[in-house]
């Protein structure tokens, strides 16, 4: 499998003038095509910053970020937006749906913005995704009229509508209860399996991370170590969770 995402010596700091805080220090990371990787680590370790830097949502101070064979660090905003639009999907803890659009319109928005497809076809595909995630009946609802779990399902549909090569998730189950969180992860994994895309998520939740093939642990802005759990299947979840917990415990995470 080829690498879909590669970072090399990425550094990132925040603040201005004399008070600058290094958030990422010489981070190098690779995600392969079709791989599901999770980043874990304590609060403030730089997990989310790394996710936004590698997805082109934030700039890096130095180092290289390559996505799908092309370097994206330093590219213009319009170019990065175009890449995000066609090849990347995002799922956030706070979901970030647009409040004045219905659930269906939120899902259709990226596809319509991308263009090249009729409105009817986009609607058809969007309805298909809503059906797969079990919220087809809510398509015409206002986003204020549905629950958090249902909103996150809509968020997944929106992330998948343009058939992205990679999905980035920042604590996608962070705002949900355990049952809803598990359901969301199952849906994400099952749909992604059909498509064969890559997933990179940031999470605190061992149950979520245990579904990933590889877990990267970050400490103080650096990749401390990583663990390979292998391909996921439902029957091995408990065993993967225990293994991961032990590994994290050893690192005081």
């Amino acid at each position, binding site marked *: 499998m080829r690498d879909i995402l590669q970072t090399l010596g990425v550094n990132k700091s925040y603040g201005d003038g004399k008070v600058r805080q290094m958030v990422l220090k010489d981070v190098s990371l690779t995600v392969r095509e079709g791989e599901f990787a999770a980043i874990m680590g304590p609060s403030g370790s730089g997990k989310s910053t790394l996710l936004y830097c590698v997805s082109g*949502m934030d700039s890096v101070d130095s180092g290289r970020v390559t996505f799908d064979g092309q370097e994206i660090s330093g590219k213009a905003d319009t170019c990065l937006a175009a890449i995000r639009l066609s090849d990347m999907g995002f799922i956030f803890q706070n979901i970030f749906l647009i409040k004045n659009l219905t659930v269906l319109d939120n899902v*259709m928005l*990226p596809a319509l913005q991308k263009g090249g497809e009729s409105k009817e076809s986009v609607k058809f595909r969007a309805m298909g995704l809503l059906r797969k995630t079990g919220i087809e009946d809510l398509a015409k609802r206002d986003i204020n009229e549905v629950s958090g779990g249902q909103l996150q399902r809509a968020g997944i549909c929106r992330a998948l509508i343009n058939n992205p090569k990679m999905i980035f998730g920042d604590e996608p189950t962070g705002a949900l209860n355990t049952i809803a969180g598990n359901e969301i992860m199952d849906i994400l994994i099952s749909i992604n399996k059909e498509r064969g895309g890559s997933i990179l998520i940031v999470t605190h939740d061992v149950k979520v991370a245990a579904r990933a093939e590889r877990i990267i642990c970050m400490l103080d802005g650096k990749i401390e170590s990583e663990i390979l759990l292998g391909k996921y299947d439902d029957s091995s979840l408990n065993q993967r969770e225990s293994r991961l917990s032990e590994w994290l415990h050893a690192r005081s995470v």
Partner: protein
Amino acid sequence: MVFTMLNKYFKREKGVLICVFLFIFLSALLIAASGETVVSLFSGISKMAEEAKTPHLIQMHSGELNKSEVTVFAEKHADLLESFQAVKMLNVPSSNIYWGDPLEAQTGNSMDNSFVTQNEKFDFLLDLNNEVAKVAAGEIGVPVYYKETSGLTLGDTVEIKSGNTSKKFMVSVFIRDSQMNSSFITSKRFLINESDYIALESIAEPEYLIGFRLKDPDAVSRISDIYADEGMPSMGPSVDYNSFVMLNALSEGMIALIILLISMLLVAISLLCLRFAMIAAIQEDYEEIGVMKAIGMPYKNIRRLYISKYAIMGAAACLAGLVFSPVVAGILSGGVDLYFGGGGSGVLSFIVALLLTMLLFGFFILFCMSVLRALKKITPVKALTGNGRDKKKSRARLLPLSSRFGNMNFYLGFRDLAIRRKTYATLLIVFVLGVFIMLTPYNLYTTIDSPNFITYMGIGKSDIRLDIPNAQNTDEILTAVLDYAKSDDDVEKLQSLSTCRYKTTDVDGIVTGINIESGDQNIFPLSYLSGKAPEKGEIALSVSNSDEFKKNVGDHISLIGEGAEENLTVSGIYQDITNGGKTAKMESVLTEGTPLWFTINLGLKDGVSIKDKLAEYRSEFLAIKVNSPDSYKSQNLGAFMEAVFSAAILGMFLAAIVLAVITVMFAYMLIVSDGREIAAMRAVGFSLKDIERQYLARILTMLALGIIIGTIASNTLGEGLVSGLAGMMGASKVSFETNPIITYLTIPLFLFIFIGTVCAAVCRRSDSSFTVNH
């Protein structure tokens, strides 16, 4: 604690508070300044009138005067009259008056220029210190009007030449004339020494100014009626004290009035912005307010917390406006100082400015309190459970993306306008008001500047206008001019009009005088507000006369000429701001009475140069005034036009600044409150440019609507407002004559580019807030 919270609020809302502060400051500044100008204007006029002992009533009379007849009249009515005088003025045609370097004949001057000596009892001509002016032999006192319009300075030479006689004077003083100061009055008086006066008598036409001072100034109309009733000399217009005050006030006061209107609109804009900012702040503090209520803080205390910051800011802005207002008032009242010598009424000006500012502040606080009623609706449960907001009936189903038309960014921007129309309504109202401020004073200027404006001056559209005053050899001059014009191949149309004074009865049945211009009124037709030009047995009245006599089209009016009486039907009503607005027109003279003056209007054939023809007639007929209606207008209204132009430029400048600041504030607040949505769009692949375009689409659509509504409002409400003001001068229905290139192209284009640039700059500056991870 309260101080800490206030401090926090100030820091958080710094930008918005600064904007609102600026607007309140600007409003207070302009309101206080225009108040000060009005006070200074009226106290200036009254102080000048006091020093000059302005007559309460004057009657002009051309031709011979039997002084003893007037003396007998004055003695007979000694119970009403304090004093009287009959002064002989020496009228000199403009073509015989020379000034400038080199000396140049003032042929284009359409004023009636007369030369007088200083009066003994009253009606004094004052110098620029408001003291009774004195001139030695060889010296001349020149009206301040010419200091301003012709740039005459002390020491300049004024020469009077007629045939072989010539007399040179040195300008030694500028004259404030409490009667004829205003540019609206077409007569101007020069002050000369007694010995020079005698020398000039041989080359000038005499005209008498019969003036009365009354024991009770309110008895003006009574003495005026008695004067007319007893058939006293009245070959000329009569003007009373109130008309002097009004004409003096109009030329300078109109500008203060326009500024006052602009500042009122500014107040409206400031309050709209404030409302927007306050609601945004309440939304932001929603949970905090809930907590305050939950821990038992009463509504009044929470309101005080909010109102104190606005009160502090409003008080500071009003105070700053009041402090700086004398500077603006100084600029606005430049003309007041020159023409009336300023009011010297610092205390009164300050009190009026203070009262106006306090009124503004009170209004501002009341407005804040009414907006803060929204606090009442917040309950702790609603606020803390998050059920209070964002749960309003959503319009998300409106305009679904599947029915998208056009570009996605434009559609999303347009859609947002439809969904959050209340939010954008504020911006729209501000744009409408801004465009209104930009256009209305400018439209007024282009209307006055337009060649069609003469319609409001009671004259038809001719090419050349010749004014022949009644004098000893009027008949000869009139015949000569008519013969010359009739044989002139370049003249296509010729209209000969004579103005006579008649008597009629007013609504109270009292006999009063009326000047009527007679002649064929169809040669250069007027636009009539109602009705048509008079035929035989008919009369057309100016708006002011129609109001005074309460006569409309179809009504009858009875005229008494010299011995004859005739009943005429009112055929039409027209607008006229000349001669105090009180004029009338007939088809032919009623009797063989002596006309007060003659007017001949010429229409030239196509291709004939008006300029050359004016020069030809001026050199041919030195004793009469030869003008084009345009120059007639500019000499009568020039100073006023300049002032309106300044007000228009000020209006445009202010409006552009206000609109830019509001756009910055609005766009910034919108972007901050839309932070989550913007971040979501960025994440799904919208570029910063896309988002910028969405905001541009929203704000520019509102601007386009604002321009359309503002232009319509200016052309309807603004026109009505101007008509209301002009109605005081005799033009009750002014139709704007716009300059389409400026009004419909340049200004909208400028606004689009200006506001678009401002909005784009705000979007670009806010780029850093467009990410989900901050």
